[in-house]
């Protein structure tokens, strides 16, 4: 009997999806301040890199060694867990990537990154919220989205309702007071009561997890790295809940390293260590859900290739997108590498963007949730018919 043709594989994937046995998850981490992609994922094999990135540059070996990945690329020493996932084929890097935004304002750059609109000025909804709208037919009445933080990131804000959760570190109100307030609201203000009940339910899951295993309260105390880990832990527990959210957004700030950026130690090293801890927390706390998860960390733009006069870097253009998750066909650095030759630098100063970030995100949404190219090009990322969804990111 003839073995099944190789071309049957995609068809069977589609049928598995249609049968509803997949339960995919997507987490978007917004890294605010513009990440130096040439330090996060240093192109240690590019001959122009050491001189250009100067005192901040890493090397393939020696005392400035970064963690080797593939080909010319390595990972910042802070990204140890991410590197481990890469080796397990659960992490992918897209390098020399950027949105369509080409100016240098953080506010406008973040608006474009998160709104998914081609230009700044529209902040009524984010592309992840519009994704929720597109998915709402598959689970009527269920909140598939989760916005993390005191103010949810714009990417998940908009008309489609989303669950919210924030790490507070406050001593929670005791059960008796909570019951009395809920009782008062039930009589006098049902809409506030419903919101409060939803908030209490989310906090309970984030603090304890939905399954047995003992409460493990995330703490807002501790250093910034622990805090970033705790935020990811809480979000992961909510995403692990059987009927919980499946799409989440959170934001980490502090990547605007104009001064004393540092190399293996310093400002950027600490922020990346927190991000690495967050990746680790998602993989640890999602349980079986990790197999079907992608966590993607994106930033508004990159930084200058050269070091400035204050041991840092200034606003630039091309940068990296970091993807982690068991759903990935990982272990790859995807880059149409422009090189760092002086004549190839964007405006003579930045890593030249050769991949549109929206193509990466469209590829993830297409393969994780089965969204059509038309929906992606019209409602999720308007006016992007010419930017094809990147293929093959997901197993």
């Amino acid at each position, binding site marked *: 009997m003839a073995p099944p043709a190789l071309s049957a594989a995609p068809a069977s994937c589609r049928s598995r999806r249609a049968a509803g046995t997949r339960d995919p998850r997507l987490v978007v981490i917004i890294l605010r301040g513009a990440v130096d992609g040439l330090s996060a994922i240093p192109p240690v094999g590019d001959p122009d890199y050491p001189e250009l990135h100067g005192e901040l540059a890493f090397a393939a070996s020696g005392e400035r060694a970064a963690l080797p990945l593939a080909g010319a690329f390595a990972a910042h020493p802070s990204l140890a867990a991410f590197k481990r996932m890469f080796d397990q084929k659960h992490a992918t890097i897209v390098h020399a990537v950027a949105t369509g935004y080409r100016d240098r304002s953080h506010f406008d750059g973040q608006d474009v990154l998160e709104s998914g609109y081609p230009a700044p000025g529209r*902040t009524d909804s984010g592309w992840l919220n519009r994704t929720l709208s597109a998915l709402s037919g598959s689970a009527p009445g269920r909140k598939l989205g989760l916005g993390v933080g*005191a103010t949810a990131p714009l990417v998940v804000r908009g008309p489609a309702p989303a669950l919210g959760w924030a790490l*507070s570190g406050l001593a*929670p109100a005791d059960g008796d007071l909570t019951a009395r307030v809920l009782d*008062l609201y039930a009589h006098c*203000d049902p809409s*506030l009561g419903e919101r409060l009940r939803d*908030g209490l339910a989310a*906090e309970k899951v984030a603090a304890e997890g939905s399954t047995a295993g003992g409460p493990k309260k995330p703490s807002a105390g501790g250093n910034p790295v622990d805090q970033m880990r705790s935020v990811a832990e809480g979000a992961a527990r909510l995403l692990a809940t059987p009927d919980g959210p499946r799409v989440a957004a959170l934001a980490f700030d502090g990547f605007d390293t104009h001064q004393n950026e540092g190399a293996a130690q310093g400002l950027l090293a600490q922020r990346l260590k927190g991000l690495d801890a967050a990746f680790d927390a998602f993989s640890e706390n999602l349980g079986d859900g990790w197999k079907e998860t992608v966590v993607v960390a994106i930033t508004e733009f990159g930084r200058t290739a050269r070091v400035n006069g204050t041991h840092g870097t200034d606003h630039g253009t091309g940068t990296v997108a970091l993807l982690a998750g068991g759903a990935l066909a990982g272990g790859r650095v995807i880059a149409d590498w422009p090189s760092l030759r002086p004549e190839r630098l964007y405006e003579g100063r930045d890593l030249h963007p050769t991949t549109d970030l929206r193509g990466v995100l469209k590829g993830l949404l297409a393969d994780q949730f089965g969204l059509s190219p038309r929906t992606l090009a019209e409602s999720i990322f308007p006016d992007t018919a010419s930017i094809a969804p990147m293929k093959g990111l997901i197993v």
Partner: protein
Amino acid sequence: MLTGWSVAGPESAVGDSGAFLFKSNWHEPGDRTILGRNYAPAGVEQGRAVLDDLARHPATARHIATKLARHFVADEPPAGLVDALAQKFRDSDGDLAVVATALVSDDRAWAPRPGKIRTPLEFIVGAARAAGFQSTDPGPYLHALDLLGMPLWRPAGPNGFSDSDDAWSSPEAMKMRLDLSWSMAQRMRGSAEPLAVLSTALGDTASPDTRQAVERAGSREQALALVFMAPEFQRR
């Protein structure tokens, strides 16, 4: 047009700290065209002329009227109210006292019930004032505002904080308000009688349910927390 417009620094020799200052040698000379109208070079007066014209533009009257009505009445204020306020703005040549008087005198401004939720700043400051709580330590207030997503004077973008109900009454925000009410009540319990605070803050507007909940509370701090969380206190 605005080049050269500045403020005096703390050590300035030419003006009080923070006062407006026009630095003519920083001003980019030349004609400016704004909204189709040409403005000849006139130093600081060029910018003032532009601002005068912008202030009298009909879109400005509507914009200010909409913002006032949205802030004080409802996210989607009655259209007739906005029109009336915009008209007052134009008729009075932008006298905000006249516009504000028209707002509070208009029945339509009082119609939408329940009212809007207090912003985090209104809630936190209101709680401390209602309790008569005096403290020289700003730390807990600033921390509370951070937790509620309204860090003092630090909005995420130049367009400022949201003025919509949904932005401030999300599930996680309501849960945070409950925890903060509890922590504030513990901190302030010595400074006020809960029923007196209820009366100070809400007077006759407290519902029988709220009054009963406060009266029947199991402890003084629980009673104070119930005042802070009462729907009439959370809303304006």
